[in-house]
């Protein structure tokens, strides 16, 4: 009672100060505000934006924790210090040593992402005199999960500033942006520092510094290997499904992503239409490529052969297509906003992702580019869906007049 009253008095006393949005942002995390309804409906439903964003974060936490263990596991596995885990509950996976690497390498990514991103948000809120909006809560969690483990922290900081300012604030803040901010950050990193974002060195902790030395370890992802018509030794489908493979920090465990996706669908926070249609789109494109291979149109020497001949369903468990479908494509602000539009939007994301994956061997993961591309087209899709409704109305009028 005392704390609440003190904070309230402090808020009232300083309500004209420029920095009050910053204080309010912290205050409202502790206490839901005492605002009451004026005009309009006198009661409101329980959900607010904080709760919505929080639900997505909860869905992401298992991926983060898994990613921390996986960081150490991949590191020691590549060094040959431990046995492969053989299954999700494998003894060599959930170990303290693995977690320590995770804490050293992954936690700083989270802290930098949140620290820098929220700093920018607070700054803009104070400059523009509005409340701090919650949009970055999810973005800040996504960013560490979609970057390679060894990325230098200053790069991440630069990218976050770029992504939040150019990707979101210039459009007017949360709810107004056209491109998914997390993917804008990743795209910035990808084009500004390509050597840190792709290739066969960056995906396992320690691979970069050991490159060229006698201790060199491979830091390659499965996709990279497939793209070069190779396979990685010692990885079976279950490893891919459980996530015991190298990759961006949090996107390897398909199992936990599916759990998170089901949670989002159950809570009605994530759009099941987008998730489902993205998966369908990816499968359809995979089937088409399988058909091309079966028809013998490309030979085994073709550089596309490796990924094109992957059985269609395996596309879902390699790379980050599932992560993109569940956590990125469903961002309501940048996705299509109509239900029909969501089907089209999701389908095209899946379709184009696999297409890029196959046709771009230099950088085989196409999900983030596909989502960014469809972000741009989402308003167009919506426009045509809404026009359907408008046309129906016009037709009704014409039928009356005639």
């Amino acid at each position, binding site marked *: 009672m005392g704390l609440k009253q003190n904070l309230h008095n402090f808020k009232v006393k300083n309500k004209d100060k420029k920095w009050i949005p910053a204080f309010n942002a912290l205050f409202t995390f502790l206490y839901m505000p005492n605002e009451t309804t004026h005009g309009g409906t006198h009661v409101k439903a*329980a959900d*607010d934006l904080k709760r919505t964003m929080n639900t997505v974060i909860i869905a992401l936490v298992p991926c983060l924790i898994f990613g921390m263990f996986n960081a150490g596991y991949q590191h020691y596995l590549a060094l040959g210090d431990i046995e492969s885990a053989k299954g999700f509950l494998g003894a060599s996976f959930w170990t303290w040593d693995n977690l320590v690497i995770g804490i050293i390498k992954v936690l700083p990514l989270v802290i930098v992402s949140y620290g820098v991103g929220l700093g920018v948000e607070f700054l803009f809120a104070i400059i523009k005199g509005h409340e701090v909006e919650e949009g970055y809560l999810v973005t800040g969690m996504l960013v560490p999960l979609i970057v390679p483990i060894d990325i230098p922290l200053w790069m991440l900081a630069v990218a976050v500033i770029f992504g939040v300012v150019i990707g979101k604030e210039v459009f007017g803040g949360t709810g107004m942006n056209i491109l998914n901010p997390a993917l804008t950050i990743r795209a910035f990193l990808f084009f500004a520092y390509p050597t840190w974002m792709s290739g066969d060195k960056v995906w396992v902790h320690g691979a970069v510094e050991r490159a060229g030395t006698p201790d060199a370890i491979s830091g390659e992802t499965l996709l990279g290997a497939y793209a070069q018509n190779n396979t990685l030794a010692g990885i079976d489908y279950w490893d891919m499904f459980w996530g015991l493979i190298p990759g961006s920090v949090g996107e390897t465990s398909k199992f936990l992503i599916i759990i998170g996706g089901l949670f989002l669908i159950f809570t009605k926070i994530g759009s099941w239409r987008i998730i489902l249609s993205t998966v369908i789109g990816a499968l359809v494109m995979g089937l088409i490529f399988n058909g091309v291979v079966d028809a013998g149109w490309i030979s085994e020497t073709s550089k596309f052969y490796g990924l094109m001949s992957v059985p269609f369903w395996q596309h879902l468990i390699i790379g980050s297509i599932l992560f993109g479908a569940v956590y990125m494509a469903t961002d309501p602000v940048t996705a299509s906003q109509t239900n029909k539009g969501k089907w089209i939007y999701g389908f095209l994301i899946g379709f184009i992702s696999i297409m890029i994956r196959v046709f771009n061997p230099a950088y085989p993961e196409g999900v983030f580019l596909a989502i960014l591309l469809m972000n741009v087209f989402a308003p167009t899709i919506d426009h045509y869906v809404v026009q359907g*409704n408008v046309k129906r109305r016009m037709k*009704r009028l014409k039928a009356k007049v005639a």
Partner: protein
Amino acid sequence: MSKDIRIKKGLDIKLVGEAEKTTENAIRSNFYSVRPEDFHSIIPKLVAKEGTRVKAGETLFYNKDYEDMKFVSPVSGEVTEIQRGPRRRIDAIKITADKEQDFLDHGTFDASASGEKVKEHLLASGCWPFIKQRPYDIIANPENSPKAIFISGYASAPLAADLDYTLQGKEKELQTAVNALAKLTEGDLHISVGQNGNSPFSGLDNIKIHKVSGPHPSGNVGTLINKIDPVNKGEVVWTVNAQDLVIIGELLLTGKFNAERIIAFAGSSVKKPRYFKTKIGAEVATMIYDNGVEKDGNDRIISGNVLTGKQVAPDGHLDYYNNVITVIPEGDDYEFFGWNKPVFDKISTSRAFTFSWLNPKKKYDLNTNTNGEHRAFVVTGNYEEVFPLDIYPMQILKACMYKDLDEMEALGMYEVAPEDFALTEFICVSKQPHQKIIREGLDLMLKEIG
């Protein structure tokens, strides 16, 4: 071609404090007030100056743009105060009621008279304001000829007065009123009744009955219009509240403007929710304290239901169009970690650690807290789940916000009223004022297009 209407999209907001079906006569209010703001977009021209004695049914003011449209006093008494706002706008006309009520005789109406005569009579006797029109959701323009008239005989709003109960035994007045109204349109008179109810409308002639079922807003007249015969550009439909038909009917039968109305007194702050017989404009304080709310309780008194009603002070008055007074607790307190802890005692359409989906029959005690701060539109697809009209709710709201008249028109602005957006406002995660946005959009169209 009576048609059954069954809607699936919507949400029943079940609240504690439903009115029990017993009617008491409210303590007679000494003061009555008529507030011109109830009549949206009407500019009043005052007739009854301060100190004038009026009979019940005598003109208080008329519409400046349409002088034949009179607004009459609900009671006989003395006009004691004209409350004015900025620029001498009339805020309220206060009348101190006589002990003995004295009615102005408008004359019994000849049932075989023509539509023109009906119109004149309703305009002169103060019954016209009960007729509203769409587009724009304003008092009907008497010069138009509506393509149909719609009446909802089924109230689905939270804690609404049960029309089957309040209109019981008024079949004669209702029939007289619908007979007269039917003459004003070339089309039909559509009335919706509840699927299971025993509506006084069901026995009437001269009307088309539609049985509606499903969650709120199944009983909204806007839903009925959209499902039967949506408003196209250039068309007009009229709507009348069911309880006001009784007043119209009685006026036609007896010549007396009897503003009596049975209202529900409901809400979780009310000790014994029940029905009252009272009059339009009656002071709320005459009803709410007897077996009702605590004198110094921290409550909100609403003239109307919790979704569309107006907040009134205890010395405020029942407004012209409502038949409910709802009292619910104010929610002006902070809630520790209210945004992330599991919620069992509030309604939600999501399942984001909100558990109202577990128990759809449970009745809730909601307060007026906004449960979060105002934000830009972020979440999509949730409005559609509670919005049964064939309109894209979020798109039309945004069109209103950026004032694109062509787009508003194309998206169906002629068909809607603010109350149609009450549910989307209730569930809005960004706490946007949907009804206000629509009202302002309609006002803009009215001004620009007319």
